[in-house]
């Protein structure tokens, strides 16, 4: 007779590796480090179980890389009250999946408080960029008697959360790091049965309360959550917690759940670095509706009430619509006659999505890889920001092969599971939800109007003049904080240095008198483009009258509107007011920011002859006395903040 077993959480959206053992060994035979890393990263994009994850991590460790071109280094410290050794391989592998090279450090289990407070501890030497607090609910539950009143429970939890917040403050103060807090998994057993939820001091009730209070505190303190509580509810607590492992080695997360745990964490780390996807591209036939519109006709396709399959397709439409409302861009990419495909949106009564919901609509008989490139270009976003949802395994394989940077969920055969698969992949993981997100769909619609205006204009000049643009500028403010952090960390194209900033660093800069921070909001007669550009200048280390443009980003939505010229006009004026003589600026080339390779010379900067450190870095200087204000079609509408 055997114990009950539970199946490990499965990352169903990832494709199954055809022959993992052989692929891994082939990768290990690859001599060149860069090639081997690429092979390992592409293997990491597959549905790996517990054992495959460990192997891949070992193979990665053999390279002992701290950094690599095309991979973002991450220094992560895990401070835990349970054993986490078994989670680190999965964290690194999930990072590899997203082109993150994670250097993960963890202290001794249960020592997190000492590690944090003792300035000579290994954590302090490690100097993490991100600190993950992985604590169990046990400590909180232990001190609360079963017969405690609601008030007593709340008081005890408030104290526990208060302690936690002081740990967050401590970590921020010591490392200037971002903080991720793990939610509390409910591993308690029922005591009263259903009545548990009516007893304030019942363990499961305490955990629920604790998570509620944790979320409130995290929201207030700008802490991100690694939501294992939610994940274990979705997958089932037995998939995430194994009493045997807890007893054997104080493992709070069951080892088979490690790959999923790593993925949940790596998503957040990637999102912090602007690597989350931005646009959901949907196929039509057998994806948004059942059947093939070209063959079955508008009366023959399956969609909506009355059929489980029709409702499942409608559920996917509904989910896409919700994603759009939270700021994800929608697009269509379908092999279809464009007029027949479009007619479904206009004529089928059950269609929830409308043509106007899509920022790009491509239906033709061309290769989908080419069409996806077209969509990225049209939307002016990186091709790696796309997610492509298609029921056809051949199309998916084709895209994965030719455009591996695109997210392609491995849709299950059962239509009923489409939404679950897409949702579990969580391609659009966020680290903020701003008014810009809420207005994004509207802004893409407005951009279509601007596009039309551009087409009808005789010249670029006429178009820009006709837009009646104005800019609102000012220093960084607390009100715009979340958007500023988001914009800087999400922007890859117009980004002069691709330097990333934590929320904490931006808050510091906002309050630093010696720094010159600028934010720009662009308005025109069609609408408000929102906060679309930020600039960070700091005194150069060796000269008081030189400001260095440490970072300058601009949303791709407003490329070609002369905002960079007006922004520089504003920056120069602000510099002159401070008595600054010169701006210094680095352009650090990346695979994604070629669009601004001539930015500084176009603005009137001169190149510095001696190249500082590498060919990828160009240093530029601007003498403010010589600067001639650029003529633009943008007027100043006032100061922000």
């Amino acid at each position, binding site marked *: 007779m*055997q*114990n009950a*077993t539970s199946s490990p959480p499965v990352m169903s959206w990832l494709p199954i590796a055809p022959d993992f053992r052989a692929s891994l060994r082939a990768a290990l035979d690859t001599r060149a480090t860069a090639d081997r890393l690429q092979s390992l990263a592409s293997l990491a994009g597959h549905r790996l179980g517990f*054992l495959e994850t460990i192997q891949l991590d070992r193979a990665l460790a053999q390279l002992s890389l701290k950094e690599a071109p095309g991979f973002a280094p991450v220094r992560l410290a895990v401070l835990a009250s349970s054993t986490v*050794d*078994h989670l680190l391989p999965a964290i690194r592998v999930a990072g590899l999946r997203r082109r993150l090279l994670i250097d993960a450090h963890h202290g001794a289990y249960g020592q997190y408080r000492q590690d944090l407070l003792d300035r000579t501890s290994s954590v302090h030497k490690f100097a993490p960029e991100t600190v993950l607090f992985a604590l169990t609910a046990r400590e909180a539950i232990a001190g609360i008697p079963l017969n405690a009143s609601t008030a007593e429970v709340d008081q005890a939890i408030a104290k526990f959360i208060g302690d936690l917040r002081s740990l967050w403050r401590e970590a921020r103060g010591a490392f200037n790091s971002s903080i991720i807090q793990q939610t509390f998994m409910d591993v308690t057993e029922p005591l009263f049965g259903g009545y548990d939820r009516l007893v304030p001091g019942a363990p499961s009730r305490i955990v629920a309360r604790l998570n509620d209070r944790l979320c409130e505190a995290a929201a207030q303190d700008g802490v991100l959550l690694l939501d294992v509580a939610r994940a274990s509810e979705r997958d089932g607590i037995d998939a995430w917690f194994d009493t045997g492992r807890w007893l054997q080695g104080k493992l709070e997360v069951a080892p*088979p759940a490690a790959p999923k745990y790593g993925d949940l964490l790596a998503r957040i780390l990637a999102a912090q670095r602007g690597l989350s996807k931005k646009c959901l591209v949907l196929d039509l036939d057998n994806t948004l509706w059942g059947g093939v519109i070209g063959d079955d006709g508008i009366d023959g396709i399956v969609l909506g009430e009355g059929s489980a399959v029709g409702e499942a397709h409608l559920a996917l439409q509904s989910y896409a619509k919700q994603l759009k409302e939270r700021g994800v861009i929608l697009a269509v990419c379908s092999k279809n006659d464009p007029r027949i495909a479009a007619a479904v949106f206009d004529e089928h009564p059950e269609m929830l999505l409308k043509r106007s919901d899509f920022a790009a609509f491509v239906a033709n008989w061309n290769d989908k890889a080419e069409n996806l490139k077209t969509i990225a270009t049209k939307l002016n976003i990186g091709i790696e920001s796309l997610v492509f949802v298609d029921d056809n395994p051949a199309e998916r394989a084709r895209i994965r092969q030719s455009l591996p940077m695109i997210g392609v969920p491995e849709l299950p055969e059962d239509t009923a599971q489409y939404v679950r698969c897409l949702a579990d992949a969580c391609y659009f993981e966020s680290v903020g939800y701003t008014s810009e997100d809420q207005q994004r769909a509207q802004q893409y619609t407005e951009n279509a109007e601007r596009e039309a205006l551009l087409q009808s204009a005789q010249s670029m000049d006429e178009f820009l003049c006709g837009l009646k643009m104005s800019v609102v500028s000012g220093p960084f403010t607390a009100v715009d904080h979340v958007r500023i952090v988001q914009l800087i960390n999400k922007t890859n194209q117009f980004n002069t240095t691709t330097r990333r900033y934590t929320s904490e660093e931006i808050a510091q800069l906002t309050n630093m008198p010696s720094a010159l921070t600028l934010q720009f909001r662009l308005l025109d007669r069609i609408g408000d483009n929102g906060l679309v550009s930020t600039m960070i200048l700091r005194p150069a280390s060796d000269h008081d009258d030189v400001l260095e443009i440490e970072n300058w980003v601009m949303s791709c939505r407003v490329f070609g509107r002369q905002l960079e010229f007006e922004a520089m006009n504003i920056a120069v004026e602000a510099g002159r007011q401070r008595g600054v003589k010169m701006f210094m600026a680095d352009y650090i080339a990346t695979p994604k920011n070629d669009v601004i390779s001539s930015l500084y010379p176009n603005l009137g900067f001169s190149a510095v002859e001696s190249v500082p450190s590498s060919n990828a870095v160009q240093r530029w200087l601007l003498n403010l006395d010589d600067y001639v204000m650029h003529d633009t079609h943008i007027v100043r509408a006032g100061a922000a903040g």
Partner: protein
Amino acid sequence: MTAQDILAVLTRILRDLLLNDSIVLTMESRREDIPGWDSFNYINFIVAVEIEYGVKFKVADIESFANVGAIVTEIANLKS
């Protein structure tokens, strides 16, 4: 499923786990015979075996398996 079949699977799992294809397991093999098979990787091994066979070992057994043969016997027992 013979004992030898199970032994072959366990050998593959341990080779994968330690990324070492030269490992040879026999029924008599003990942890200390295999370089790198420490207590951490013992639990990893047990977990991988449990996933492979869809079984769950009793904690008492995990603590007391004398050698690989004992694990093979228990798997055969759980699968019967």
